[in-house]
C-alpha cells in the first residue's frame, strides 16, 4: 500500500490530506474537511494535470516574445517536455490570441496557443 501526502488547493484552509493507494486505486482519503479536498486528492494522485504557460520567440514583431499557454491541462509529468517544444517554437509576426504555436504538443492532443497579440513591424 502506498501513502501520499498532499496540500489541498481548494481554499486557503490548505488541508493536509493523506491518500492511501493500492495498485493505483484510491483506498482512502483522510485529512480533508470537505468534498473539494476529496475530489482534488483523487485527481491529483491518479492523473495530475497542469496548464503550462511560457513564452515563445516571435520574429518581425513589435515585441520579442509572445506569451503562450497549453489550451487545456496536460499531464503533470509532461511539463518539461512541453517546455522544450515551446522553447523550440519560432513564430512570425503577426501573432494573435488563440493562434496555434505548437500543434498537439508532445502528443498530448493539446495545442499550445498564443495569449497575446504581436503585430508585424
Amino acid at each position: 500500500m502506498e501513502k501520499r501526502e498532499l496540500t489541498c488547493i481548494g481554499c486557503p484552509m490548505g488541508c493536509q490530506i493523506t491518500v492511501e493507494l493500492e495498485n493505483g486505486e484510491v483506498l482512502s482519503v483522510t485529512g480533508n474537511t470537505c468534498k473539494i479536498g476529496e475530489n482534488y486528492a483523487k485527481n491529483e494522485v491518479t492523473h495530475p494535470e497542469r496548464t503550462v504557460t511560457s513564452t515563445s520567440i516571435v520574429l518581425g514583431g513589435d515585441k520579442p516574445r509572445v506569451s503562450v499557454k497549453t489550451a487545456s491541462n496536460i499531464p503533470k509529468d509532461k511539463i518539461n517536455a512541453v517546455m522544450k517544444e515551446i522553447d523550440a517554437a519560432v513564430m512570425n509576426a503577426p501573432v494573435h490570441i488563440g493562434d496555434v504555436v505548437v500543434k498537439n504538443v508532445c502528443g498530448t492532443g493539446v495545442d499550445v496557443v498564443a495569449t497575446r497579440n504581436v503585430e508585424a513591424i
Partner: protein
Amino acid sequence: MLNYDIVIVGGGPAGLAAAVSARNAGVDKILILERDKELGGILNQCIHNGFGLHTFKEELTGPEYAYRFIEKVLDAKIEYKLNTMVMDISEDRVVTAMSREDGMYQIKAGAVILAMGCRERPRGALNIPGYRPAGIFSAGTAQRLVNIEGYMPGREVVILGSGDIGLIMARRMTLEGAKVKVVAELMPYSGGLKRNIVQCLDDFGIPLKLSHTVVDIEGKEHLSAVTIAEVDNHGKPIPGTEERYTCDTLLLSCGLIPENELSRNAGVEMSPITSGPVVNESLETNIPGVFACGNVLHVHDLVDYVSEEADRAGQNAAKFIKGELSENSGAEIEIVATEGARYTVPSTIDIGRMDDKLTVRFRVGAVYKDSYVSVYFDDERVMHNKKRIMAPGEMEQVILLKNKLEEKPDLKKITVKIEAE
C-alpha cells in the same frame, strides 16, 4: 488647455474598466493616460493563468484578461495616450502630463479617476544587511525581464518573501532552467495562495522556509551568496540557525504599496493602513470629482475585484460630471474596522448617494479559523457570518443594504470586526 470629461490616470485593469463603464454611462470625452508603451498594465507580464474566474467564468492568462478590456476600449473608441507620464494633478482637476511626442501639456478634467496601481516594496525598504551588488531584483522586475523582454536574470536563485509574484517567479525561472534553491518567508505563514504554494513550489521540490529572513548578502560586483536565518516571534534572527546559499540572483517578493505620489501632491487624504486614498461610498476621495479604484486604492488579491471596483468608479465619475451625484449631505456614517479587520474600503457612507447595495471590502490582520465576520450598526450587531478560514492574503467583504441603513436614521457608526463566537 485641453478639456476632457473624465481623465483616467493609468491604463491597467482598473483604468480600462473605469473607462468602459464611464462610456457605457454615456460620457463622451474620456482620456486614458498610460506611461507604458501599451495598455494592459502589469497584466501583460502575468502570463500565468488563473485570472477572470469571477468575471468571465473561465481561467485566462493575464494578457488575455487585459485584452478583453482593451478590446472594449478600442471598440468604444475611447481615447488614450501611451508613453505619457502624469506629472501633477491639481485640486481643481487640472492634469499636467508629459510625453516625448506632445511635450508637457495640461488637461482640464471634469472628473479624474486615479488608477495608477501599486509598486513592489524595494530592497531599500526592507533593511537587509550586506553588500549591494547587482543581481538583486524585485520579483516583478524579474517577471518583466523573463516574460516581456525575454532575458533570464540569473541561474541560481534565492527568493525572499512568499507573496504570489515570488511564488509564480519560482516556477517560471525553474521552467526556464534556473535552480531556485529556497523561498524564505519572514512571517510564520505565507501571504501567497495555497494553489501557488503547491503548483509553484511543491511541484518542483522548492523548499519554503517560514519564519526565515535574509541576514547577509555577499558579492562586490555581482551577488555570490546570501545567508538566511530563522527568526523568533519578534522577527529577530536566531543565532546558530544561519544557512548560506550560493546564488547569482535574489528576488524580493515582500509586499505591494499603492503608488500615490500624485494623489498626495493633489491633497488627497490617505489611509495609513492601505497607503491608498480614503474614499466614500462613491469611491470618491476628499477632493470632489477625484475618484480612485484598483491597486492604487488598496492592494487587491484578484483582478476580478479590481475590474468590479473600477466599474463603480467609472459610473460614479459619470454621475459626477452629469451633476447626478448629489452634494455630499455631510451626514456621513463612518465605517470602522477593528478587532482583526484592518481597514475597510470605503470608509464612509452618505446614504443619499448610496446604491441599493454596497460592497465593503476589507482584509484581516492574521489567520482566523472558524471565526465570524460581524457588522455592528452603532452598538447593535446586525450581521454575524461564520467563515471557516480568513487569511491576510485574501480580501473579505460584507454587503450593506441601503434599506437596512435607512431603518436607522440616527446611525453614526458601522463597525466591522472578527469575533471568535
